[in-house]
C-alpha cells in the first residue's frame, strides 16, 4: 500500500501531493511551544505510530530547551541588556541555535523515515509555529489512494 521512494528528490519528482495533515499546538501546559502527540488517522496506513510520536516528542523537547527559563537564559538576557542588544550582531540567541538544530533534525527525519514512506514534514517555523504540516504524496502513476478526498480524483483525472 505504501509507495516507496528512495530519497527526497525522487519523491518530489515522481510523486504528486495528495493530502496534508496538520498537527496543531498543544496549549495544555501554557503558551510554550508544544505540539499534540495524538496520531492522526490519515497517517495510519503510512507510518508506524511510534515513529511519528517519537518525532513529535523530540521536537517538543527541542522547543522546551529553546524556551527554558533558567540560568543560561538569564545570563544571556542580562548580557544582551548590558550591551544594548548589540551583542546579537555577532552572536546568535539560544533560541536561534536550537531552531537550527531543529531544522537539521527535521531534514534528517525526512530523509531517513518520511520520504521513503511518501511523506514530508515541514518545519513548523515556516508555518509560524502554529502547526506541523505533514504532506502525503502519492505516486503519480497510482490510480487511486486511500485518502478518499476528491482532490485525489482530480489529480488522477490527468
Amino acid at each position, binding site marked *: 500500500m505504501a509507495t516507496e521512494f528512495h530519497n527526497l528528490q525522487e519523491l518530489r519528482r515522481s510523486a504528486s501531493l495528495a493530502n496534508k495533515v496538520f498537527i496543531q499546538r498543544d496549549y495544555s501546559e501554557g503558551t510554550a511551544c508544544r505540539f499534540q502527540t495524538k496520531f492522526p488517522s490519515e497517517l495510519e496506513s503510512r507510518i508506524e505510530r511510534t515513529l511519528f510520536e517519537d518525532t513529535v516528542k523530540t521536537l517538543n523537547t527541542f522547543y522546551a530547551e529553546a524556551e527554558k527559563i533558567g540560568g543560561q537564559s538569564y545570563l544571556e538576557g542580562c548580557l544582551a541588556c548590558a550591551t544594548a542588544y548589540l551583542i546579537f550582531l555577532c552572536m546568535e540567541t539560544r533560541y536561534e541555535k536550537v531552531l537550527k538544530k531543529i531544522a537539521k533534525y527535521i531534514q534528517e527525519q525526512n530523509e531517513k523515515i518520511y520520504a521513503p514512506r511518501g511523506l514530508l514534514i515541514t518545519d513548523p517555523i515556516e*508555518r509560524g509555529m502554529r502547526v506541523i504540516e505533514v504532506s502525503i504524496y502519492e505516486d503519480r502513476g497510482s490510480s487511486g489512494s486511500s485518502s478518499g478526498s476528491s482532490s485525489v480524483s482530480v489529480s488522477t483525472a490527468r
Partner: protein
Amino acid sequence: MHLGESTRECEYSQISTRSSTPMETPYKKKTQKKRKWETFPGRNKFYCDGRIMMAKQTGVFYLTLVLILVTCGLFFTFDCWFLAEQLTPIIPVIGGVLFLFVIGTLLRTSFSDPGVLPRATPDEAADLERQIDVANGSTGYRPPPRTKEVVINGQTVKLKYCFTCKIFRPPRASHCSLCDNCVERFDHHCPWVGNCVGKRNYRFFYMFILSLSFLTVFIFAFVITHIILNSQRIGFLSALKDSPASVLEVVVCFFSVWSIVGLSGFHTYLISSNQTTNEDIKGSWSSKRSKDNYNPYSYGNIFTNCCAALCGPLPPSLIDRRGFIQSDAPQLAPPTNGIPMYGSTQSQQSHMCDQDQCIQSTKFVLQVATTPLLQQQSSEPVILTPENGASIPGRTSLALGGPCTSLPMGQPTPPASTPSLSCHEATDLLPVHGHPHNHSHPLQEQVAHHHFLTPEEVPSPPGMLHCGSPLGHSHTMQGSFYNPASQDSLHEDSVRGLVKLSSV
C-alpha cells in the same frame, strides 16, 4: 552623415531593445525575487528593506521622539554647564547615559516585530474549516461558534478563531485592529511608540518607560536645582529670564512625570503578576469573576515572573520579513464541499468543470468579502459590554495621563473607523481586504451578480438587519455565538448569498 548614421544606429538599437523588452523584462521581473515584507497582508509599514517594522500611523511616534530630543537637547545645552560647574560633572554623564538608553529602547520597541502571527496558508485554513464543520455539524446559515476550549494549569481558557488570519489564536494572543495582525501575548497598541506591544518587544517597552521615568525625574529635579541655585545668586525672576529653556523643560517634565511614572508603576504590577494590559483591563484573571479564577500563566512568585518577562529567551520573528518569496509550493486541489482555495491551484483549474469553478470561486470571494468585514466589528460580543467608554474599571486613574493604556483593546475597531463600513462603500472593500493574491479582482462582477440573485429567497437570520449603526450597538447583542452580519445590509446580503451557495 556620420551623425545620421549614429542616430540611425541609436534608433536601431532603441527599436531593438523595445522589441525585445516585452520578452525580457517580464522574464527579468520573474527572476527578480520579491521579499516577503512587500506582500505582507497586515497594515504595517516597512523600512530599510524589511528590517524595520512599524504600525501604519506613526505621527505620534515622531512627536514622542521630538519631545524627548528637544527636552534633552535643551537640558544639555543650557542647564548642564551650570550644574557641571556648580555641582559635579557626573550629572551630564548620567544624563547622557540615561538619554542614550531611552532612545535605544524606544527605537528597539518601535522598530521590532512585536510577535506577529503569520496568517494561515490556504491549506491550513481549509483543514481548520473542515474540522470545525465536522465538530459542529453544518447548522445552516448560522455560522458555528468558533471557539475552542483548552485547560491550562487548571483554568479553562477559550481560544477564539480569528476570521482575518484564519487561525485559532493561541492563548494570550489578540488581533490588533489597527495593524490588522494577530500578535502573540498582545499587551496593547501604543501610538506613542508607533507599534503594537507584544511578546517580542514588551521588555524593551518596559525598559523604555522605566528609563524614561528616571530621565524625566532626573531632568525635572536638576532643572529645578539649577533655577534655585541661580536664583540664590541673582534672584528668582532674573534666573528665570536667564534660562527660559529651563521653564519649558520644567513644564514638559512636570506633565510627563505623572503619566510616565504612573505607567511604569502599572506595568511593574503587570509584570510581577504576569498579566497583559489586555487581560488586566478585561479582568480575565480577577478573583471578582469567580472564586477559583486565577492566572494560569503566573509562576507563583514575583521574582520569577519578573525574570521570565524581562530576562527570558527572546523568541524569533515568525514572519521572516526579509526572506524571498518562493515560487508556488505544491498545494492541494480544493475540495468541492469545503472552502475552495482558488488562488493556489492554478495548475489544476483546468480539471474542474467550469460551473463548479464558478460556484467555488464566487463562494470564496464572498467569504473573503465578508470575513474581514465580520472580523472588524467584534469578535467578542459578550466580553466587550463592560468595556464601553468610561466603564473601564480600576485602572483609569493611572491611565488618565498614560496614553498607552488608551488603546488596550486589540480587537474592537475604534468607532472612528466604522464609517468605512457603511453600506454603499462595502463593495470598495473587496480589493482592500482581499488577500494578496490576484484572484479576487476578476471576480468582482460575479459577486455583484450574485447579490441580485440570492437575497430574496433566504429567510433572514435573526439579529442581522441593522444597517450603518455604530459599533456600540453590536456590543449589546445577545448570543454566545459569533454574530457576524450585525450592521450592514450588504453583510446581510453577502451572508445570505454565502448561505445560499453553501446549500447548493
